[in-house]
């Protein structure tokens, strides 16, 4: 027995020696400032993107008024341009499912696609509809405008007829007005609320399921996996179904914008990862610099290069994903596969490095 104690004693001294020699080396503190990360995201990415989107959104609304007052080819085209500008700007903010955006289900009212045409036409025919209803989420937002501006008929002249000569032309015009009003109101609410909450947003950095930093990161990854990877690429290219479903691409009625929208979305995701300021080349504190701080440069560089690879693959696709899927779906699924690799890096490697509390994990561990 005595021997055991001697052994223990020696071991204890050995450990003590080890740890005190460690103390001689410079103390590594986790000086990573998580508030600085949130500040960079809020001040240099989210708020500028929100503000930009607000501007685009109210411009879109005004163009809508111009068009519904005077529906002609010129105003239709102006409205379409405005629609696309706002839709592109939207790609920067869909990932922020936080605060009022989460409460109001902002993204579900703005960008559920494909739309249900029968719902839209039913609403227009009945003239009584509640766009706040969950059932109408697939009958409004950018995809509904896509249908109303491009999908009502085969030619522009025939589309314009719906607003100029058709018996229920007023109903069509009213519906555009209602959809734009809804989008603009939601946007104003979400943006002004976030700006008001900014100061409390940046200090919520605990490692809990409900802190802003964890929610932001979880939502970011969820958006990348679902909103971007699956919705824009996986579902239309038939990754989850027996056959490809080209009718499910984003912006299907316009049919030439799906690639540009997707590229914008990937860039927005990459910019957030790298802390790049909105529409600028400056970078700030980011998820990437957090990884580097944790001595995981391997994950940091792999992720950046994977985003670049995915972007390069998407660049090779046709402007219209529907066309791409019909002609060469392999290139499309290749893009999906490259995006999938980044899911793994973010969701598996990055989250493991951060050891972030996730919301479903409230059961005991051992």
């Amino acid at each position, binding site marked *: 027995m005595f021997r055991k104690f001697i052994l223990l004693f020696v071991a204890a001294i050995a450990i003590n020696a080890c*740890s005190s020699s460690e103390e001689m080396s410079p103390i590594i503190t*986790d000086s990573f400032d998580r508030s600085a990360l949130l500040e960079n995201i809020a001040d240099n990415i989210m708020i500028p993107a929100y503000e930009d989107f607000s501007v685009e959104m109210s411009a879109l609304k005004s163009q809508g008024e111009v068009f519904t007052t005077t529906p002609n080819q010129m105003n239709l085209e102006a409205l379409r341009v405005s629609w696309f500008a706002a839709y592109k700007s939207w790609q920067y903010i869909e990932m922020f499912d936080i605060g009022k955006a989460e409460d109001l289900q902002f993204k579900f009212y703005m960008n559920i696609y494909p739309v249900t045409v029968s719902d839209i036409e039913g609403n227009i025919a009945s003239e009584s509809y509640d766009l706040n209803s969950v059932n109408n989420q697939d009958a409004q937002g950018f995809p509904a405008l896509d249908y109303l501006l491009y999908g009502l008929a085969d030619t522009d002249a025939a589309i314009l007829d719906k607003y100029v000569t058709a018996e229920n032309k007023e109903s069509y015009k009213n519906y555009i007005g209602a959809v734009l009003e809804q989008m603009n109101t939601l946007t104003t609410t979400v943006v002004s609320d976030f700006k008001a909450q900014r100061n409390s947003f940046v200090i919520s950095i*605990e490692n809990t399921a409900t802190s802003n930093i964890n929610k932001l990161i979880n939502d970011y990854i969820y958006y990348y996996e679902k909103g971007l990877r699956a919705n824009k690429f996986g579902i239309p290219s038939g990754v*989850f*179904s027996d056959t490809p479903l080209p009718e499910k691409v984003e912006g299907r009625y316009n049919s030439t914008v799906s690639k540009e929208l997707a590229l914008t979305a990937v860039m927005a995701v990459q910019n957030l990862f790298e802390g790049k300021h909105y529409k600028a080349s400056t970078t700030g504190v980011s998820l990437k610099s957090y990884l580097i701080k944790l001595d995981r440069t391997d994950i940091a560089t792999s992720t950046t290069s994977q985003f670049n690879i995915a972007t390069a693959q998407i660049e090779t696709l046709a402007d219209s994903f529907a066309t791409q899927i019909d002609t060469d779906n392999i290139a499309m699924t290749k893009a999906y596969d490259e995006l999938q690799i980044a899911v793994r*890096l973010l969701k598996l490697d990055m989250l493991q490095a951060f050891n972030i509390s996730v*919301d479903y994990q*409230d059961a005991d*561990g051992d």
Partner: protein
Amino acid sequence: MLMKILKYNLKEQTNAAPLAIFRLFFGLMMFASIVRFWANGWIEKLYLVPEFHFSYLGFSWIKPIGNYTYLLFIICGVSALFVAIGYKYRIAIGIFFLSFLYIELMDKTTYLNHYYFISIVTFLLLFLPANAYFSVDAFLRKKQYQQVPKWTIDSLKLMLFIIYLSAGFVKLNSDWLFRAMPLKIWLPSKYDLPIIGENLMQQNWFHFAMSWSGMLYDLTIPFLLLYKRTRFVAFLFVVFFHVFTRVLFPIGMFPFIMIVSALIFFDATLHNKMIDFLRKYVLKSKRVLLSTPNFYFSKVKRKVVLAIFSVFFIVQILFPWRSLCYPGELFWTEEGYRFSWRVMLMEKAGSTNFKIVNLATGRSFSVNNTDFLTAFQEKQMSYQPDFILEYAHFLGDHFTKQGHKNVGVFADSYVALNGRLSTRFVDEKVDLYQQKASFSHKKWILPFQSEIKIKGI
């Protein structure tokens, strides 16, 4: 030491109070655990919401039973209370054992070492005369036993010995000792703890100190508890260690159960004081029961129980090491990882998606895991091979039933272990639907490829 064991006297009697106190606290803790489980909404979340359940091999017939699952928890909780007060003890502990076991076997997603600990301690309690002293049973039969065979109490100590020592030995590996993994990942993420969060938790030396002291704690604490001169200090260590881990990690009731269990090592003076205290201030009873000095098993019963215990302990000692029978890296394949006191030993996560292939035409589509699994189940499935296989079979059956022909199931699976970059986990060319579930080595798990190998036990 060896001589002492050889000379072990099975006829020796000892004071029954430690066993009574153990029974009381164990029952109360179990009751509290069940109440807490229910109050947290976990019955619904873990057992009723999922439409698919992961089963232990051979136990797929044990499933949650709809809303009757609540009844099962009521039965389990009430029997725990009966155990605590020692009323109809033998029936109560039997019912508790069966209901608890049933709950644990319903879905292995929720496997925790401490649930396993509870199951095996309950198994021992099935045979022990834990109601001999200070129990309602004793009160009703107007007779309580002062002394019980010493080996009954020692069997609980032996179980704790096996657990602590096994938990200590499995920490003797290079990841734990020389990379301070997984504490190096876990501790810094506790930056939001008051006072120590932003400094101590972030120190490299602290991660190593915690790893090494955790290992030494497990290997020495049973000895320190056993010897009288070190016992009190050892108990303080036990309290500190478990409270500290409770602060750091989401481990529920387990630390408290372990603290209370460690009381079994103290001699009866302490337990008798506790019982006196309870009599005086809680029960406020002055009735003195007629005490019979000694409880004995009948000769046959004693022989049977001792035989069962011998086999049980041999199995308990050997079972944690069954992993040695499998090739490959244990942390990677997890063949023999569960039921072996490998507690909070690694940080592992996976991303596993499945492709359903028509083997005749080669056409395929991917499965959205959230269509079938809860987020928690998906997380567990993604890095544990037996889960992956079981789920692959479920998917194969599901899509065959839906009318798909020539179904093959292939996994696109990546796993990250203890801070290594994720690598491919399952051979993507193997049709998992054709692989049988068994205890033999799963050849479709790709070998552990990281250059940072894991050496040790």
